[in-house]
C-alpha cells in the first residue's frame, strides 16, 4: 500500500514537473518566479525590453509564505505607481504589492513590499529620451492611502531624468508609511547623481528597481536618573565639572619657570669658575695699567 502510494506520488510530481516545464516554455512569469526563488536580487526582466507587452515583474524579495496561506491577521494590498514625463499627465507604470498586517492593538502596518514595473513602451521610451535631452524631471506618484478608493490624494516625487540612467535605468524608492497611509515616497537614482549632469543613455531601456519601506523610528526615552540627580545636588554644577587634568597640565605654569630658574642657576654655576678666572685675568690685565697710570 505504502509503496504504491509512494510510487503514485512520484508519478504525480513527475507529471506536474513536466507540465510546468512545458508551460514554462510559454509563460515568462513562471520562469521568473524560479529566477526569484534563487534569490536573484533586483533580477532583470528576461524578456526583450523592446517588447511592448508588459513583462512580469523583477521582484526583489522572496515570496512570502503567508501570501499563499492567507493568514487571517494580514492581507495583501496592491497599489499602483504612476509616472509622468514632463508636462503630460500620469500613466500607470507598475504595481506595488504589500502585506497589510493588523495588530492586536488595532494598528495596521505594511510589510513585505514588492514592486513590479511595467516595461517601457516605445512611446514612453521616446518621452524619456526627450526628457534626458532637456534635463527635465521624471515624476512618479503613489496614492497616499493604500486602502481607500479612487478620488484619493497622491504623494508625488521627482528626479532629474539624467540621474537615473546607468547600465540600465536604476531607480530607488523609499516609501515612508504610517499604518495604511503613505506619508511620502522618495524617488531617485540608486547611487549618486553627478553634477554637472551629463547626457547619457542607458545600455538597457529597462528599470532596475530597489524598494525600501520605512516606518518612523521611536525616539529613545529621555534618560532619568533620580539617584544621580540626588547625588549631584550637593556638588554644584556637577554637569560641568572640568575634566581631570594630568600633573603636567595642571602645574606647567609653575614647572616651566622652575626649570628656567634651575637651568639659569646651573649655567651660572658652570660659568662661575670661568668668570672668576676671567675676572682674575682682567684684573691681572688691568692691574698693570693702573700701575702704569700711577706711575
Amino acid at each position: 500500500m505504502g509503496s504504491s502510494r509512494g510510487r503514485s506520488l512520484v508519478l504525480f510530481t513527475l507529471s506536474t514537473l513536466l507540465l510546468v516545464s512545458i508551460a514554462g516554455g510559454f509563460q515568462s512569469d513562471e520562469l521568473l518566479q524560479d529566477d526569484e526563488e534563487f534569490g536573484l536580487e533586483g533580477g532583470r526582466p528576461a524578456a526583450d525590453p523592446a517588447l511592448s507587452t508588459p513583462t512580469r515583474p523583477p521582484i526583489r524579495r522572496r515570496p512570502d509564505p503567508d501570501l499563499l496561506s492567507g493568514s487571517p491577521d494580514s492581507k495583501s494590498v496592491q497599489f499602483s505607481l504612476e509616472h509622468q514625463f514632463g508636462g503630460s499627465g500620469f500613466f500607470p507604470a507598475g504595481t506595488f504589492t504589500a502585506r497589510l498586517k493588523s495588530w492586536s492593538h488595532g494598528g495596521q502596518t505594511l510589510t513585505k513590499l514588492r514592486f513590479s514595473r511595467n516595461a517601457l513602451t516605445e512611446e514612453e521610451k521616446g518621452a524619456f529620451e526627450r526628457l534626458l535631452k532637456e534635463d527635465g524631471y521624471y515624476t512618479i506618484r503613489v496614492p497616499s492611502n493604500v486602502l481607500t478608493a479612487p478620488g484619493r490624494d497622491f504623494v508625488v516625487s521627482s528626479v532629474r531624468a539624467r540621474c537615473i540612467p546607468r547600465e540600465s535605468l536604476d531607480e530607488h524608492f523609499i516609501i515612508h508609511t504610517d499604518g495604511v497611509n503613505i506619508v511620502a515616497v522618495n524617488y531617485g537614482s540608486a547611487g549618486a547623481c553627478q553634477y554637472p549632469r551629463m547626457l547619457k543613455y542607458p545600455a538597457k531601456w529597462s528599470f532596475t528597481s530597489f524598494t525600501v519601506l520605512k516606518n518612523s523610528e521611536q525616539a529613545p526615552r529621555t534618560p532619568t536618573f533620580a539617584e544621580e540627580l540626588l547625588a549631584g545636588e550637593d556638588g554644584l554644577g556637577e554637569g560641568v565639572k572640568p575634566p581631570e587634568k594630568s600633573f603636567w597640565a595642571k602645574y606647567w605654569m609653575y614647572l616651566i619657570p622652575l626649570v628656567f630658574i634651575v637651568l639659569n642657576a646651573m649655567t651660572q654655576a658652570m660659568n662661575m669658575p670661568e668668570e672668576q678666572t676671567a675676572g682674575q685675568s682682567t684684573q691681572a690685565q688691568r692691574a698693570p695699567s693702573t700701575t702704569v697710570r700711577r706711575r
Partner: protein
Amino acid sequence: MGSSHLRPWTAMAIRARLGFVILLSLFFSATLSTALYEDQVGLADWHHKYIGKVKHAVFHTQKTGRKRVVVSTEENVVASLDLRTGFIFWRNVLGKNDHIDQVDIALGKYVVTLSSGGSILRAWNLPDGQMIWESTLPVSTLSKSSLYVLANMNVGKDNLILVFGGSSIHALSSMDGQIVWRKELSIDSLEIQQIFQPHDSDIINAVGFVGSSEFVVYQISYRTGEVMQQSKASFESGFCGEASLVFDNLVVALDASKSSLVSISFKNEVINFHQINLSDLVPDFSGKVTLLPLKFNGMLAIEIASSILLLRVKGANELEFVEKISHPFAFSDALPLSKEQQAFAILQHDESKIHFKVKSDNDLRNEILKETIQMDSQRGNIEKVFINNYIRTDRTHGFRFLVVMEDHSLLLIQQGEIVWSREDGLASIVDSTTSELPVEKEGVSVAEVEHNLFEWLKGHLLKLKGTLMLASPDEVAAIQAIRLKSSEKNKMTRDHNGFRKLIIVLTRAGKVLALHTGDGRVVWSVLLPALRRSETCGNPFALRVYQWQVPHHHAMHENPSVLVVGRCGHGFDAPGIFSIVDSYTGKVQNSLILEHSVSHIMPLPLTDSTEQRLHLIIDAKLQAHLYPKNSDSLKHFFNEMPNIYWYSVEVEKNKIKGYSLESKAELDTAEEYVFQAKELWSIIFPSESEKIAVTATRKMNEIVHTQAKVVADQDVMYKYVSKNILFVATVAPKAAGEIGSATPEEALLYAYLIDTVSGRILHRVCHQGAQGPVHAVVSENWVVYHYFNLRAHRYEMSVIEIYDQSRADNKDVWKLVLGKHNLTAPVSLYSRPDVMVKSQSYFFTHSVKSMAVTATAKGITSKQLLIGTIGDQVLALDKRFLDPRRSVNPTQSEKEEGIIPLTDSLPIVPQSYITHSLQVEGLRSMVTIPAKLESTTLVFSYGVDLFFTRIAPSRTYDSLTEDFSYALLLITIVVLVAAIFVTWALSEKKELKEKWR
C-alpha cells in the same frame, strides 16, 4: 606639644583649600557665567517699554495727587500713565487671548477691567497696579459684554459694578468682586443694549432688543436685582441692532433696512415708536445710514454717504441739524463739566493740521474751545480722542486731549501744543531687518562732541582710580555716567566692530521705523502710504520687510534700501503691496499695488548690476513673479533658473509641496517676468493621526565655518550642511489642544527632517506621549525642539544632529593635504543621501515662548540657544548642553573634547539670562544679527517691549573689553621706559664710579 606642631599644618591646609576654592570659583566663572556686573547694565543693552494702541482711556485727575490716565490697549495691556510726562507708572500685560473689553475706575481707587469676552473682571489698585481681586463670570461667548460702574450712589458705601451681555446682568461688589446678584432675563435672543441709572434712584433701567423687532425695557432693583417692571413693544419693520441712548427715556435706533431712524420713547410701561424722516434734514438723501457711537445727552451722530451729521434731538419726533463734518475726524465721549453741563470734542483733520473743537450742550452752535495744531504727517490720521478738563488759572475750563493716531502713537495735547508723545506702534512689530550705517567719510565727523585731551585724560584717570579701587562713591557714579553716556555707541556711522547698525522694523500699523542699536532711538519713521487705508485698498496689512539693496562694490554711492511687502485684505488672493524705502533717510522710493496676490516671498541669493536683490513672489495661483523687473535681473535669473526650488506648507490640508520653475519655451513680452510653477514632490500627513504643528528652517544668511567635526578618538564626522533642510513637527490631532486635553496614549509627536529640493525625508522620529506647543530652531546640521512630555509631566527639549556619511572616507590627512579629496566636488541633492542621525532628549523646566540661535560673522564661535521663557525673559543656553553625544560616563578623550556628562535635565543658570533683571513684556520673537567681531552676536528681542543687547557666547576672545584701561597700560609703559632710563643712568654712573675706583 603635639598640638602646637600640628597647627601650622592645618593652617597651611586651610590656606591651600581656600586657594583651591578661589581658583575653582574663578574657573567656574570663566566657563559658565556670561552675566553682567551691576555697573555694566545699560552699557551695551537697552530696554524700551511700550503699551500698544490705546483702546480705552480713563482719566484720574480729581485729587491733588498725581495726575494719571489709565489706558487699555490692543496688546492686552492695562497701564497707568503719568499725565504730565507720558511715563508709565505701572502696567500689567494680560494673556495673549485675554482681550480687554472695557476699563473703568471704581470707588476712586480701583481700576476695573473686563476682559476675555466679558468673562473675567479684575480690579487693580490705582496707585501701584497690584491686583486686588478677580472674578470669573459665566457669560455666553456669543454676545458682546459691557461694563457699567455705577456712579457714586452713596459715598463710602459699597458700589456695584454691573456687567451685562446677552440676556444676563451680573452685579459685583467693587470691594471684593463677589457677585452680589445675578439676573438671567429669561428670554432667548435678548441683547441688552444699555444700562443706565436715572438720577438718584434705586432702580436701574436696562433696554434691549429681542430678536429683530421687539424692544424691551426692564426696571431692576439696584439692591436685589429683582425685575420691578418690564415692558415690551414690537416694531413691524424691525431693528438692525444699533441703538443710541439719547435721553433717560428716549432711544434712537436704526431700522432693519438701515435706511431710517426710529426714536423709541418709553415712560411708565408705555413704549412709543416714531419713524424719523431724514429727508427733512438731508434733502437728497438715499442709501444707508450708520449710527455713530456718541455718548452725549440729546445728541446724535449719523453717517450718510461718507459725511457725518451731528443732530440734536429735541423730542421724540424732532431732530435739529447742528453740524456737518467730513472725514477724517474723531469724537470724544461726553465729559461732565458740572451737574447740568456736558462737553465733548470734535477733532478734524485738514491735511497736516488738526482742528480741535469742544462743544458743550449749553450752546451747540459755538465752541468753548477751538485750537489748531500742526501734526507730523508720518503719524497719519486721528483714530481716537479722549478728553479731560481742568480748571485754568482764570477759573475757566481748560481741556486736554489724549489722541491716538493711525500709526498707534499716543499724544497728549494741551493749549495747542503736544505735551508728550509715545511711539506705541513699536509694541506691535511684525517683522524686522537690519541695515549697515554709512561709512565715516574723511573730514565729515558726525559726532563733533569729542572730548578734548584734558577731558579724555581726566576720564581715564577716573577709570584708573576705579580699577585701583581708590575712587570715592561720587567718583564711581561719575565713572558710570561717563560709560553710559559714551557718545561712541550712538554715532551715525559704521564702527569697526559692527556693533552700530540700524534695525528697521515694520509695525502692524504699516509704519517703518529705523532704530539705532546704540540706544534704540528712532532715527527716522515713515507711515507707508501704500499701507494706509484707501479706496483702492480697504484693509491693508503689513507682512514682511526684506533687504532690497545692499551696496557693496558697484553701487557704493547709493543708499541701501529695504523692501516692504503687504497685502490688501486678509484673503490669500488679495492683491499685494510692494514698497521700497531708503534705509538711511526713510524716503519711499517706489510704491505700488501689485496686480497679483502674495502668498510666498523668496529673496534669491542673486543681485542685479545695481545690487538690487532679486525677489521671487509666488501668488495664490502658483505663478512666480520676478522683481525687480528689468532685463538685467532677468539675465541673472535665467542663469540660475534650473536651480531654483521652493516649497509650501499647507497647514490646513496637512501637506507640504515642493516646486520648481517650468522652463519657458517662448518669451511673451507682457508676461516676461512671470513664471509657472511645476510641482515636484508632495508629502501628505495622514489627517487622522498627524497635524502640522511647527516648521523651521535654517536662516538664509547663516554661515557654517567647519563642515567637519573632530570627535574624541581623532575621528572626523562630516556635518550634513544643506541650506535646504526643513524641520517639521506634527502632533496627533487629539493632542493638538492644551496640555492635559489628551492622554499620553493618544499623544504622539513626529519630527521630520525634509530636504526641500528633492522632498526626501531624511529622518523621521516619533515621540510617544509628547504633545505641543512645539517650538523649534534649526542651525548648521542640528535642530532643537521643545515640547511637552505627558508621561514625564515635564517639558522636554530634543536635539537631532545629522551627519553626512557619504564623505566619511575623507579622513586621510595626507589626502587632504595633497588635495586628493572630493570635498570640493559639487554635491547633488538628487543623489541618495547617506546620513547618520544622532539624537537625545533632555528635560527642561520652563515652557517656551520662542526660540532662536546666535549667529556670528564667520560661524567660528560656539552657538548658544536663546530661549524666550514664559516669564518674558531671554535665557542663553549653551549648545554644548544639547549635545546628543553626552553620555553618563564620558571617556577621557571625550572629556578632553569638552563633552559634558549626561544629566537628565538642562541646567538653568540664573546668570545666563541675557535680559538680566528686565522683562521683555509680551515677548514674541528674538532676532540675532552677527556683528563684524566674530565673537559677538547682537540680539534684538521684541514683544510689547523692545530689548537689545550684544552677547558673546564664548566671551570676547578677539577684543579687549570696553572698560579696558588704556591709561593704565600707557602709564605702565611710560613708567617702564622711565625706569629703564633711570636704571641705565644709574648703572652708567655706577660703572663710572667703578672705573674711577
